């Protein structure tokens, strides 16, 4: 068997990292040929759903490279991306895909050498991790989890939270209050867990109506916690009772507009 050649997608900002990659070329610095580069104007453009979609399509690793803090061409797009990636790593950890397959790094326009080094190290790291689990034996479950993660990352609540993180934790609100970072992080953790679970329940009940017990089995979450989410989902019109089997209600996902 020939050696595993990871498929790596790199999203590079136009002003720093893409220029750094160009400089690596101009300086003829060699690095592994696995990375496929997508140019975006700012690393902050990378919506958390984009890396998830790329993982679903079979990438073994995803890199987002932006300007060093303070150097961003758009002031702070990179810092906003840092928050999005932080949330995304939490979400990815729930899917069974290793969060180490996702990496955010800063590379400046003059760091051709650093670009090559960052890419080489990441390629080696992915090589060690092996092929993405979406082609492994639990692939169906992991794909379903990634879909759930993508839907969670598309959800209003999580996006508002991430979009406002810096405002909430770094700047004061009109009452001169500021949420301590730790408090925010635990709120974010909780929201990530809840939203992921809801989206997973939603996906599972799309194909067939399921009971709380079978959902608890499929998600590995206690029935009471599953029921709590279902109550919430019914309020949000995400799920409905399809039928009652004996005395057990079976739930069916509703199309979310």
């Amino acid at each position, binding site marked *: 068997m020939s050696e595993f050649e990871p498929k790596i997608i790199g999203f590079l900002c136009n002003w720093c990292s893409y220029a750094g990659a160009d400089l690596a*070329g101009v300086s003829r610095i*060699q690095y592994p040929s696995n990375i*496929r580069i997508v140019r975006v104007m*700012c690393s902050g453009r990378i919506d958390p759903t984009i890396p998830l979609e790329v993982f679903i399509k079979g990438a073994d690793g995803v890199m987002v490279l932006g300007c060093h803090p303070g150097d961003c061409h*758009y002031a702070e797009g990179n810092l906003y991306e840092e928050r999005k990636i932080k949330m995304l790593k939490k979400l990815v950890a729930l899917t069974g895909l290793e969060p180490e397959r996702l990496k955010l790094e800063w590379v400046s326009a003059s760091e051709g050498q650093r670009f090559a080094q960052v890419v080489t190290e990441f390629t080696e790291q992915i090589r060690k991790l092996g092929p993405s689990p979406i082609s492994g034996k639990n692939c169906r479950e992991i794909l379903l989890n990634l879909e759930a993660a993508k839907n969670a990352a598309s959800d209003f609540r999580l996006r508002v939270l991430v*979009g406002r993180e810096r*405002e909430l934790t770094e700047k004061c609100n009109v009452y001169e209050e500021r949420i301590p970072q730790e408090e925010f992080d635990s709120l974010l953790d909780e929201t990530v867990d809840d939203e992921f679970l809801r989206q997973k329940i939603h996906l599972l009940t799309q194909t067939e109506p399921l009971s709380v017990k079978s959902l608890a089995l499929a998600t590995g979450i206690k029935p009471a916690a599953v029921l709590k989410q279902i109550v919430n989902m019914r309020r949000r019109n995400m799920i409905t009772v399809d039928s009652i089997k004996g005395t057990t209600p079976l739930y069916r996902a509703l199309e979310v507009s």
Partner: protein
Amino acid sequence: MSRDEKPRIGVFVCHCGVNIGAVVDVPEVVEYAKKLLYVTHAEGNLYTCSSEGLSKLKEAIEKHKLTRVVVASCTPRTHEPLFRSACEEAGLNKYLFHMANIREHCSWVHPKEPKKATEKAKEIIKMAVAKAALLEPQTEPEIDVQPSALVIGGGVAGMTVAISLANQKFTVNLVEKESVLGGKLRDLYKLYPNDVYSDEVLEEFVQAVRSNANITVHMPATVKHVEGFIGNFKATIDHEGKEKVLDVGTIIVATGADVLKPEGMYNYGEHKNIVTQLELEQLMKEKKLGKPKDVVMIQCVGARENKEGGRNYCSRICCAVAVKNALQIKEMFPEAEISILYRDMQTYGKDFEEYYKNARENSVQFIRYDAEDPPELISNHDGKHTVKVHDILVNATLELGADLVVLSTPLIQHEAVKELSKSLKVPLGADGFFFEAHVKLRPVDFATDGIYLCGTAHSPKTVAESISQAYAAASRASIPMALGRVRTEAITAFVNEDKCTGCGTCIKLCPYSAIQKDELEVARVNDVLCKGCGVCAASCPERAIDMKHFSKAQVLAEATAALGGSCNE
């Protein structure tokens, strides 16, 4: 083209002479490209950017009725404008063009793996074609450019820019941190290779600046921060404790450089007769040199280091400076013995080699040492020094007595410009100097439109080189100011008003205040203010915002085109 029509994509694969062609199998890549979805034409070119290559591209657009063009060659950061114009000339909206970088990101970095490089080039093109299929024509917003410039730095480079722009009737604000104009030129004695007094040269510049009604000199003043973009920058300066805001169309960085003080090297700072070249010039200028008999100059002190994070660059000018100062001392004191201890002599410029020869003929001794075995300095009780050096050309260790030791130290970046670099959003290179947009193609531009660079802020230079580069920077800056209007990229955000709930997250995130709520409480983007970063689109809770030319669908199409999918269970 109507929306229902299928795109007709043309792919042009460049050999770039041997740059791509010697590594990537271009004919194989062309055959591969022909089979990609929506590709109606593919061809290889020796140089797609040559006039012949461009006319072939334009012909193919007409002949094959192409509605999208992909050029697989070098980086879009330098060549996209050229190919975009060619598309426009052939009647195709320039936003229907996309570039696949198979040189900087492929052939140049994988020269030893031609097979892998060829496969990578194919995939890069596949990705570009996938994005191209989704491209849409765009119209660019136009903005006014104020006919005024901010020149940062009142040295010879900054003054040259100021005079040059002012003579073209542009308003110039010259900001100098000291209370006199002239920069480092003020400290120099004579200039090589024709030995004119620097004061004479300097005086002409200062007079020209002072007498020009279009130039306002702010000094002592520093730039605190800069906002805005080409045509409409707002620069806040600190002028003797008072803040002033200057509205300018362009900015030229001419902040100059400092000279390294070699603390801790060769007993520098402990004896009056161990000085840097710059200090020697000041002594000569002020006629305080005394009458040195034995002079030893040591080159590359604190320069051309070979260590991580070190000053690894060559300061270029120090060789000629040492030759110049040796000749000056010889002229004053013909009987003085002068030795120059060097690693490599780099007297590279016009008339410099003759100047160097002149020094040799004037019995200045040149002794070559090895970087691994640098000279050693021992200070004696009588205030004189002994310099031990291994001459690698005659393979002998020499002991030279010295009553004057001159250390040639490199030009270094000012500590204070780090803040300026952040404020202007323009990068510094690994050596600490400002970093241009492209070393060959855009040597005086920054990647950020409307900001230009010249003088020793960029790299160590002679006065003549600084002046030439200053003319270049002035000329580049005058283009948008003379036109009065520039078109900006159509890469801006747009809001799907049906999806927007008016939550206001985007308004808080936008660094340009380009998003506001309209009378219906939905977000609206001001195209001229929007710079197209896409942070709003990536964060919109309702996913109601997308980007022109970098839509989520386009980015995803490009990213996933090279992936095969998976789950075989």
